[in-house]
């Protein structure tokens, strides 16, 4: 989940903070920079796969650092931040909306961290003005929220709550959050504005959005501590019936294995890297990449690298065998683990989450009904792996798989009639096909109450009969007049002849060959 840091660079950010102990003047901007520095450091150490970009805004906005995992660049840009004029949030939000869409499209969930002192401008371009003029805007001047992509909005106020509530700022920010569908949070500083309180505020943000997701991956008695990245987000199902958010378990249990060909590019809600972690390291147990004590780290990493880990074994075998592991994420919620290779021949263990529910993939059926092959009387994969129990077939075939009759276009009807006539001319060789097509037409005509058609086709068959050449097989004439007669009877709607499930059968004749004895 990429992050956009939207940093207020307006002049109001340079307001000094009254500080008793320190003689040096401290501005709100300095506090903001300190907070962000802490966030970037945390990410560099514990969440280093996150792409982050930095946008500064005042009345204009500027993309200072495009999406990157290089936190030193972000840090550098932050320390070179200049001061500009007034706050104009709306255009900045438009800006980041474009930046995100250009980079990640519209489906990628994004986190927006807005850092501001809470003075949101005055007059035109201020947030208050933007919110007051929400309604009645033309299509091309719509307010940028909600974003076209799923987004969490974290508003970091370099101000305390009392200060914000004295004006309507808090109210405006809450409204902003609501416009975003309520997804996000407003953070304010507690107590005096100082380095300590800004760090505590960013600490709360880190806990809420940037703490790694630790889990245990299990396959029977084999297990590995892992970090799932990015953090899996809670999922809401049918809000009317089941309004509770669903979280994935921290105990990920493998149910069994399925061939890639059988699971067949299933739709997934999200993808996550599953990175094995060494929990008993003395250095922070927060996954790879802590660099606080470089020397220690290297040796600990090397050591962890040499301890056999189940994830590596699993990944290797999944890759070699071309299989996926079905993993349970919660009650009636499943996902799959597989080896994902990128273009650089690096590969890693990836987990995709299916939509929650008992039957996420119709071609697998209910997951709870998937059992071990040893339960089956006969190996469903065959002794030589030549078969597969998947995909499951639906009980009723779809229209395109069952030769349905549709006469909405005249050509559909013409084709069906011509098919019958073509076969009629090749009697008795085509007796089977002739009656098959005839019965198909008869069934549809009866269902649609299209008796006129039955009469019409009967007449056509009678005419064909008169047109038979002298060389024709005698059986042909018999079958044609028999079929014509039966159609006419059906067209009366007499239940004896017009039953839907009844078929016209070929006439029994004394002639050898042909359709006799069908």
């Amino acid at each position: 989940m990429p992050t956009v840091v939207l940093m207020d660079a307006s002049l109001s950010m340079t307001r000094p903070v009254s500080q008793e102990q320190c003689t040096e003047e401290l501005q709100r901007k300095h506090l903001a920079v300190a907070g962000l520095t802490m966030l970037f450091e945390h990410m560099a150490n514990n969440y280093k796969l996150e792409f982050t970009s930095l946008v500064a805004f005042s009345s204009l906005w500027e993309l200072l650092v495009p999406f990157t995992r290089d936190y030193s660049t972000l840090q550098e840009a932050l320390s070179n931040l200049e001061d500009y004029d007034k706050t104009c949030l709306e255009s900045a939000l438009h800006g980041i909306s474009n930046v995100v869409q250009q980079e990640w499209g519209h489906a990628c969930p994004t986190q927006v961290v807005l850092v501001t002192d809470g003075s949101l401008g005055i007059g035109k371009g201020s947030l208050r003005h933007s919110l007051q003029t929400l309604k009645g805007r033309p299509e091309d001047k719509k307010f940028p929220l909600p974003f076209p992509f799923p987004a969490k909005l974290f508003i970091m106020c370099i101000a305390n709550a009392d200060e914000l509530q004295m004006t309507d700022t808090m109210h405006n920010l809450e409204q902003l959050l609501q416009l975003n569908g309520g997804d996000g949070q407003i953070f304010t500083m507690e107590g005096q504005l100082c380095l300590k309180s800004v760090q505590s505020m960013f600490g709360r943000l880190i806990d809420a959005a940037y703490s790694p997701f630790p889990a245990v991956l299990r396959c029977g008695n084999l297990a590995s501590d892992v970090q799932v990245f990015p953090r899996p987000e809670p999922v809401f199902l049918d809000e009317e019936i089941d309004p509770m958010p669903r979280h994935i378990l921290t105990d990920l249990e493998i149910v069994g294995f399925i061939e890639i060909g059988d699971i067949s590019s299933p739709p997934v809600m999200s993808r996550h890297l599953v990175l094995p972690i060494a929990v008993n390291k003395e250095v922070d147990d927060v996954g790879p990449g802590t660099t606080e004590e470089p020397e220690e780290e290297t040796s600990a990493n090397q050591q962890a690298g040499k301890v056999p880990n189940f994830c590596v074994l699993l990944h290797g075998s999944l890759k070699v065998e071309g299989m996926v592991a079905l993993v349970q994420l919660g009650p009636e919620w499943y996902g799959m683990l597989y080896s994902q290779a990128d273009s650089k021949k690096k590969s890693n263990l990836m987990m995709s989450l299916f939509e929650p529910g008992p039957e996420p993939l119709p071609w697998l059926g209910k997951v709870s009904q998937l059992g071990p092959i040893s339960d089956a009387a006969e190996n469903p994969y065959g002794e030589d792996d030549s078969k597969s129990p998947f995909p499951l077939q639906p009980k009723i075939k779809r229209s395109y798989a069952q030769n349905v009759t549709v006469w909405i276009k005249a050509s559909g009807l013409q084709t069906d009639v011509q098919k019958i006539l073509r076969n009629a001319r090749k009697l008795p060789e085509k007796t089977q096909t002739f009656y098959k097509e005839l019965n198909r037409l008869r069934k549809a005509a009866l269902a649609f109450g299209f008796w006129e058609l039955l009469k019409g086709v009967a007449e056509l068959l009678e005419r064909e009969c008169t047109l038979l050449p002298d060389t024709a097989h005698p059986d042909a004439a018999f079958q044609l007049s028999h079929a014509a007669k039966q159609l006419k009877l059906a067209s009366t709607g007499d239940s004896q002849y017009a039953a839907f499930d009844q078929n016209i059968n070929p006439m029994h004749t004394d002639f050898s060959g042909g359709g006799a004895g069908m």
Partner: protein
Amino acid sequence: MMFSVSHKTAFVVDHCPYMAESSRQQVECDVLTKSRGQGMIPLAPVSKSLWTCAVECSMEYCRILYDVYPLKKLINYIVSDSEFHILNSWRQEDQSTHELMSALAAVGPPNPQEDPECCSVLHGLVAAVESLCKITEYQHEARTTLMDTADRVANRGRIICLTNAKSDTHVRMLEDCVQETILEQNKMAAGSDRLMSIQQCELVLVHIFPQGEDTLVSDRPKKEVSSLLTSEVHSVRAGRHLATKLNILVQQHFDLASTTITNIPMKEEQHANTSANYDVELLHHRDAHLEFFKSGDLHMAGSTSRDSGLKETVTLKWCTPRTNSVELHYCTGAYRISPTDVNSRPSSCLTNFLLNGRSVLLEQPRKSGSKVISHMLSSHGGEIFLHVLNSTRSTLEDPPSISEGCGGRVTDYRITDFGEFMRENRLTPVPESPDTEASGKPPAERAKAQLERYTRYWPMIISQTTIFNMQAVVPLANLIVKESLSEEDLLTCQKTVYNLVDMERKNDPLPISTVGSRGKGPKRDEQYRIMWNELETLVKTHVAGSERHQRVLDCIIACRSKPPEEEERKKRGRKREDKEDKAEKNINKDSEDKSWQESERLKGTLERGKEEQGESEIIKDSPDSPEPLNKKPRLEEIQLPEKAKGPVSLLTMWTNRITVANSRKHQEFAGRISSVNNKAELYQHLKDENGMDLHENGKATR
């Protein structure tokens, strides 16, 4: 929203005498070819009645619906003349076009002779409202599972009425009647467990009139009749127009969208060696176009408006080369499709191609620039799905390689063995039956239980195991993990054990790992001891399974004979006698015996599970065993994570860590020990110093 208006659709089709009237749209079904046409009078064209038009268009609506939503979107088909005829129920098994066609055939076309005064579509509309109050199996299931919050289960529905109305006043009368019936029925439903009151109902009135006539009823967009009922009126000519109208309605009602696959290469019937390109239009859930909607890219993606702007379709280009089935695409959605023109030749060519198991990637036609593959068509078990592929940059790009992480440096994982393990633990659908419920665990839980059994003893790396590197152990290893053993299985296991005894007698070599150790590794009899111990460990994890599992263990214990050390000593003696060159050994014999006694004492104090560890110590004490010290650090390393699981004091963690770090540095030391040719004193001395060094070094590194 599971129980939206589209959960229940009641079709009410007018079956009154006036519906027998001709639509006056004529179909020429006698197409004469040039060669045969001469002198023949073609058959008069046939024309469909209003009824036939209504029925076939409603069937087309149902066909598309059932293709795209085979479950949970239900249709109740009602026909109305002098009374109502309900052709099916809300039950899922009644939901198929075949069922409906069969029932329609039984009804037949309207009887023009019937008294028009007795006939009305009202009977059907009343029946439809009553029907909407009936609970479906899905609503029932949701209510039962929710229990106290059962009132969250909504009851909404839609009535599509195909009729020939007299006037706008007539239409209003029909609306009023539906409104009244809803109020009446809701009262009744309130006092019933098996009925649900209607919270929302959409009435869609389609007035059908013959070609060439002027309509007596005016179109009217959706309006609210009451808080419960909305109503809209469509006035349509029978025939093609009606078909188009219902096609648009089914898309609106079920959130469908249209995609036209273009540039499909297809062999010509007449000229097999040429191929022309065709287009096929498919309907599917509109979420398959979500990315286009959001980006406002609909037109860029090649969307075109047809039928005077009523219908939009997105064009996607057939893309060669095709994809193979063993590729796992990153797919964000998969939606069932239904071809708009199901039995046209291009449609059936495309669907048959897909049903045969092939997949097609689809490309967004762009005026310029790179090609973007955004969708894939693929069938799964006779159903075709439009898959949405992710075509934007991934946030997971350039991940660290697994070889850089924990366990990434280990090179001797049992990859092939685990592959075999995965094949044995593949899943298969188990038919739902009362039996499986009686036996307790659902199949997926049984699959997990099997994984638990199979992994009770499963060393991850080759150098950690002996028995799994031995072909001779395979039969036993495969059987012992089973939930229950047959008498035959037991025999096979026992045979395996006898076979191992035989190997030991013949002194066959064992695939003991020599990784990391110098020389030729432990001696043969030592190897067998390791092997037997490992085999015992494996079997012991399963003895609780059944009495036969226990008997396998008994067999092993009996065959390897106890105590193993004594047995081995005897054997050792025997072997030694057989050997030609024993001068050197004889010299050491005394000290060796002593060390063996010592080791036996030591061993007694050790738990069975820690036998391996004890072993390494014994090897160390043994005078003629080759350098074993390299093995020690490895063993400790392996046990580290396990130790960490339990409550471990900080000191232990620290000491372990330092021990591991230091033992590595001491490899050279150990090398020198072996070169000294086993001076017991020196060995002890060094060992003590080692202990001291540990702590000193530990401080030094800090």
